[in-house]
């Protein structure tokens, strides 16, 4: 009997370590990527709003040629802006169009983030479940959840 139990426990532990934990790590990494994207777009939006506010028509920037070697560049007309819409396409926008696009984009990203958050939560729940099962098998007393006063 004992040996069977030990086997089961081992299997559960292996399952947790090999499937669930890497899955969790994966999901968190993907979610972080989307966070980054979100940040990029929100920065872009702020910049465009800034340009609009100050009515900036031409711009001087420093362009990174690689290995932190910069060169001056001039943007004579800032009315047209090309935004990356995914799949390798860049679309020419005016400012207002660009802002609209960016807000749409941000919504989409938020939905993606929510999905990933749910996935992560479910994986965590599964891990907890398996741990509980192991605990039962070992007949370790349950951990008492501290109950706060619920008003």
């Amino acid at each position, binding site marked *: 009997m004992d040996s069977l139990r030990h086997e089961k426990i081992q299997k559960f532990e292996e399952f947790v370590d090999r499937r669930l934990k890497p899955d969790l790590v994966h999901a968190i990494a993907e979610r972080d990527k989307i966070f980054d994207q979100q940040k990029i777009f929100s920065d872009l939006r702020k910049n465009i709003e800034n340009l609009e506010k100050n009515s900036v028509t031409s711009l001087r920037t420093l*362009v990174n040629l690689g290995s932190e070697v910069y060169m001056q560049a001039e943007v004579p007309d800032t009315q047209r802006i090309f*935004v990356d819409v995914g799949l390798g396409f860049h679309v020419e926008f005016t400012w207002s169009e660009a802002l609209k696009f960016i807000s749409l984009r941000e919504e989409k990203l938020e939905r993606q983030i929510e999905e990933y958050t749910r996935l992560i939560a479910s994986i965590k729940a599964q891990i907890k479940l398996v741990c509980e099962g192991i605990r039962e098998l070992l007949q370790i007393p349950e951990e008492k959840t501290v109950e706060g006063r619920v008003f």
Partner: protein
Amino acid sequence: MGKSEVKGTVTSLSSMFPAEEVQKAAKMVEEKLSEKQNEMNQLKEFIADNTSLINLVQKLPDELHHDIMVPFGKAAFFPGRLIHTNEFLVLLGESYYTERTAKQTVEILKRRGKSLESKVDALKAVMQDLKAEASFFDSTASEAAEGLVEIREYEEDNSTERASQSGSLELETPSVAEADNKMGASEDDEYARIMSRLEELEKEELAAEDNEENLEDEDEDANAVESDGNEDELTKAAEGDGDEDELTKAAFHRKKDECYSYLDHGQRYSESQSRKQLQQFNGKEPIEEMSNKYKHQDLTKQFASTGLTGEPVTKGEISHGQIIQQDTQTLSPSINAFAPFEKKSVQTSKSEFDSSKAFTGSIVEHTQNLDKSSVGTNMTSLQSSGSQPWKPVSRFKMQRK
């Protein structure tokens, strides 16, 4: 010659290097190797980027303006143009930037490329070592599995003391070191013999002082003449200067002439050599004074400047090592560095590899014993491992008649 009391041990390789540990070690080395490989790849990427950037920087000043898409953040572009095409802002590190022209920028980038390449070379060397380690571990593991046995024998008489073993060559070095360790018991006997020999030589020296003809080789004259002229330089040179070349040359000349006699006489040569040295100094009057002075001065100097005598000898030895490779059997009875050089004569059978490796330990430590041995009899040589505390162990047969 001497008694041949043979002691020996037989140890199985597998007991010394347990199989699993060797495999673990091999794995670790492989992991490190792969790490280094990754680093190497990264560095190569950097180098490639650097070269492409150099090309770009060289091409840009060809035009006044370049039409480009100017990035605006990570996800947007503005159409625009590059202006001031000869002005580059280069990051030097630590948030320091500098404005440079295209040419200057190219120079900066080239220097960066050089440092990257030197890093790559260093990494390559490290990887080589790791590979050698890995192969060593593998072969050891296979040998241990086969059940190879290491046999060590050494005689009470230290003339032919060496560790013979059946097994890989790679173990030679550690086994030699271990054999050296085991020779401790016999060292005291040798030391006593050396002391008696030294006394004999001193007596001979005194006797030889009265005689004018005391040269055994014709070349002695030539050598003496050379040494006459060179001695001053040598003494000074050896005293902490960097003129290892002079030291080397003088010693080399002497060596060249003596090497053939060494070949013939083998052990006896070292004896005659020591006598020669004593006699060299004493054979000629001008040298006589010098030799007397030398004995006292130099010894004291050598006491005072232990490290210094060590250093020039070291360097001299390096060049000697090179010279030795050219003339296989060369000895160097240089004034200040008898021990390590003469040690080489015995170890010629062991190949130059040992001596060039061995000198480090021997040089540093031999000066301690100068008070006991006179100049010519500083034959006490050290073991090749160099990790030994210095003991007056001599691998020469000079103390035996």
